[in-house]
């Protein structure tokens, strides 16, 4: 691998000032599973690699006892920590669905949710469930702190809004009502080590009784240059009973909304088909989980 200098700052401000001063010659490293591959392939040639791993306070899951309160996930939390956490397992199963299948155990032990988001690939399994949960992100930079919606964090494949020196520090999941559930599926040719042909995450919030949809969120991966929401399909479901028929139609609308392309991994027509089918299936699963998750 090409030589670089490895710097291990102890505070966030120290890290930010290093990267701000070196500009393009410096890159942050969290887990390293994306960055080191790019350096090996010659796609990135930093002179300085700045570790975020020894900065305290970035790797905690702050759970306040229920999904009806805000939950915060530090950017340096590993996928494995999320996979094994009771918080995702019992309360945000849509996140568990995604993180438990990212790469392998070896990758998940070091790769972080923040790194996954900042890498900004259209397929990001880490991003889709969070986008479906209306997550926000917190950013720390030379000018101070800012917060924004995760959906708008991505500008294009591999591109985010982060300015020079800025660090993603936290993911914030807003409160939901008590009858909400979500599910995510990554569709690929094999059962592991896959980058998805499409990824579909659905979150539904039900009215106080019955199966009527109060709000729905449908997030799609690899259906556009960045993670997207199928807003028209969501609007269609609002106020309607969630069942196979309505989900079928929602899937059809979401497929129309998506901006799928042909690629080595799959043709556009096939991706559209998958969106249609998987929105329906994840919607049903989300419904089931919403009904179980009372209180």
């Amino acid at each position, binding site marked *: 691998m090409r030589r670089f200098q490895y710097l291990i700052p102890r505070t966030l401000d120290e890290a930010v000032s290093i990267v701000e001063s070196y500009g393009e010659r410096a890159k942050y490293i969290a887990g390293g599973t994306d960055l080191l591959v790019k350096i090996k392939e010659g796609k990135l040639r930093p002179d300085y690699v700045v570790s975020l791993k020894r900065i305290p306070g970035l790797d905690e899951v702050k759970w306040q006892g229920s999904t009806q309160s805000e939950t915060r996930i530090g950017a340096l939390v590993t996928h494995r920590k999320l996979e094994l956490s009771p918080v995702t397992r019992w309360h945000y199963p849509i996140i568990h669905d995604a993180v438990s299948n990212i790469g392998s155990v070896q990758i998940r032990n070091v790769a972080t949710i923040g790194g996954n988001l900042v890498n900004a690939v259209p397929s990001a399994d880490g991003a889709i469930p969070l986008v479906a949960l209306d997550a926000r992100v917190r950013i720390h930079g030379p000018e101070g702190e800012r917060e924004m919606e995760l959906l708008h964090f991505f500008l294009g494949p591999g591109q985010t809004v982060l300015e020079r020196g800025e660090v993603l520090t936290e993911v914030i999941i807003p409160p939901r009502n008590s009858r909400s559930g979500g599910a995510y599926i990554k*569709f690929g040719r094999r059962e592991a080590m896959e*980058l998805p042909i499409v990824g579909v995450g659905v979150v539904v919030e039900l009215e106080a009784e019955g199966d009527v949809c109060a709000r729905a969120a449908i997030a799609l991966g690899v259906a556009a240059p960045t993670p997207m929401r199928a807003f028209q399909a969501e609007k269609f479901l609002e106020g309607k009973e969630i069942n196979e028929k309505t989900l079928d139609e929602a899937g059809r609308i979401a497929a129309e909304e998506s901006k799928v392309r042909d690629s080595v991994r799959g043709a556009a027509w096939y991706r559209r088909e998958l969106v249609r089918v*998987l929105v329906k299936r994840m919607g049903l699963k989300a419904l089931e989980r919403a009904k179980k998750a009372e209180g």
Partner: protein
Amino acid sequence: MEELCVVGKPIPKLDAVDKATGRALYIHDIRIPGMLYGKILYSKYPHARIAHIDVSKAKKLPGVRAVLTAEDIPPFKFGFYKDNTPLKGGKVRSYRDEVAAVAAIDPDIAQEALDLIQVHYEALPAVFDPEEAMKEGAPLVHEENRSNILKLPWKMHFGDVEEARRKAKYVVEDRLRVTWVTHCCMATSGCIAMFDASQNLTVYSNTQIPSLAQRDYLEALEAMGLKGKRVRIIKACIGGAFGSKLDTYPYEYIAILLAHATGKPVRIVFDRKEEFVATSGRQPAIIDISQGCDENGRLLFRDVRMILDNGAYTSWGATTPSVMMMPISSLYRVPNVRYEAICVYTNNTYSQAMRGYGNPQATFAIESSMDRLAQEMGMDRVEFRLLNANGPGEVTPQGFRITTCGLKECIEEVRRRLDWGGPKEKGEGVGIACLIHVGGGARVYKSDGCGTIMKMDDFGKVDVFTGATDMGQGADTVIAQVVAEELGVRIEDVKVIHTDTDVCPWDVGAHASRTTFVACNSALGAARKIKERLLELASRQMGEPPEMLSIKDGEVFCKDDPEKRLEIGKILRKAHFSQGGQMLMADFFYDPANENLDKSFRGNLSMTYTFGAHGVRVKVDEETGKVKVLKYVAAHDVGRAINPLLLEGQVYGGALMGIGYALTEQLILEKGEVMNPNFRDYKILTAKDAVPIETYIVETMDKDGPFGAKGIGEPGCVPTAPAIANAIWDAVGVRLRELPMTPERVLAAIKEKRANSG
């Protein structure tokens, strides 16, 4: 049946302990003092003239010891068609063409040096479709030829296919396509080349063909002006082969040239991307097949025509038709068979041997067509196969003399275990496909032989020097087992050495699943000689005639009076330490009594044939096209299982490789460039994809096999694709004719069927 001590037992592989503790040394782990690291620069175009190469900056980089291009090396052509050179000069014909090579003191410097080499190319029109490349006016890949079609003799016709076609009541025709897949050995390719003070060559190698590689390297040395030298090949632990080491690659010659240029050992090891791009995988094919049967379902003819994308240079892929003839002429009883294969140069990658060597490709076509024919006449697909199944003692149209044959039993077992004809859920289906493969060696070359030298020392320990190659399949262990069984010693006392051509005798190579059959028979030949002499010595010392003596657990004892016994070590020490002392050594060269194929391709290629049937139950998700394998049964007639544990490993591994071939694997080339040269996008199956495979073995006790055994290395991956294709048809009524049968292709077929039946 006699009671055996060691043969037939699940003995763990002899080198497993070294592998489990990290002691085993692969090429990547070997360091030689002064060793340099070699790297290769590949072409940036699929077809172009090399206008100019500037290596001056690379040569000046500190740490670089040699930079070679075609200009620096003697003109030297190698390969089956003698159309390949170690470094390409004048023009490049594919993205994997080797244009320059560097040796440096460490791999990073070598890589940096490659980046400093400037090559000026002038692009030429290229051709990537073999059917296009066959046409007049297509760009010529090798300009010295008048056409891109290779002059190869792959034409066979036994009986009268046209006449049979006229007589047939039912006829089906199909075109099928199979594409490139590759071995994906977990260890990447590599070798270390070094010369001694007298310019004799030693190569640390992964080769499956040590004796033939010696010949290849000697030819190179001659071209380099080094005549009459010795070549020594030392095999490191091989990290997977599956046929990928059956031909000598350009990189091996490059290592030799760099070692000669620098006077130092040079190691070349591929990275994973190079492994995908610059090694040769399975031969793709466009297959046209038609078959016909009479009103009772008896096969009357089989007519096959193939177009093979030969890529830019020629390796064993161009000879796969010689093996494809085997299932075409001899899988099931077909009196009239015709086959023609055309190999065409293109600017794509080229192929060589891969487990099955053409049999999986041909069997995909034959068994898909068999299913179609059964449907056409309304006969049950298993009944149709039983009706036409081969039986013991038959001679096929190609002249294969079938000795033992457990095919019918295999088919029936598969039918039983799959609950064929039983209830099925929606989207479920069952399929079956059978196989024939050589099981008793294969006289591909003029020799099919294997040599063994055996010695027994003063402590009763046996050393077996064999020409055979162990590449993880267990050759070392089964050889030790048959020797231990024959000699009556414990397996712990047998050591098998197969790693050094200075010490080991000749063998034609680890191909055609021949190793168990040929190498074990060879070892048995030597063991019998040793046993005879040992009993002679014992007889003199114990005062009993040799026929009254038996050997077990390292002791010779009297059959009538077991208390009268002598430890082997004692017998040998006495024989050695005396006047006119003797040591105990024997050699044996076993060359099976099989035949070369004659000019019409007729001949008994193997001493015996391995048969089998695979059955599979699948569930097809009709909305996404995803195929899930619910149950997989692999039944084989293996003659005898010398080691059931290792045999199972061959079947499991072969079958999963075959399932990957059927469903998920493809090397994607776009305009000659490999688009998925990594494990992320080339989908070999993971632990989560592994399918529970039920194995069933029929032991037909072949009279020519060592303790009755036949070969099993390749059969596991031969009928997998058609078994699955046939099950998909049963499940959702669509016939997939192209591999891999990805969810996208399955769904497209389902939609097309719905649209047509509209």
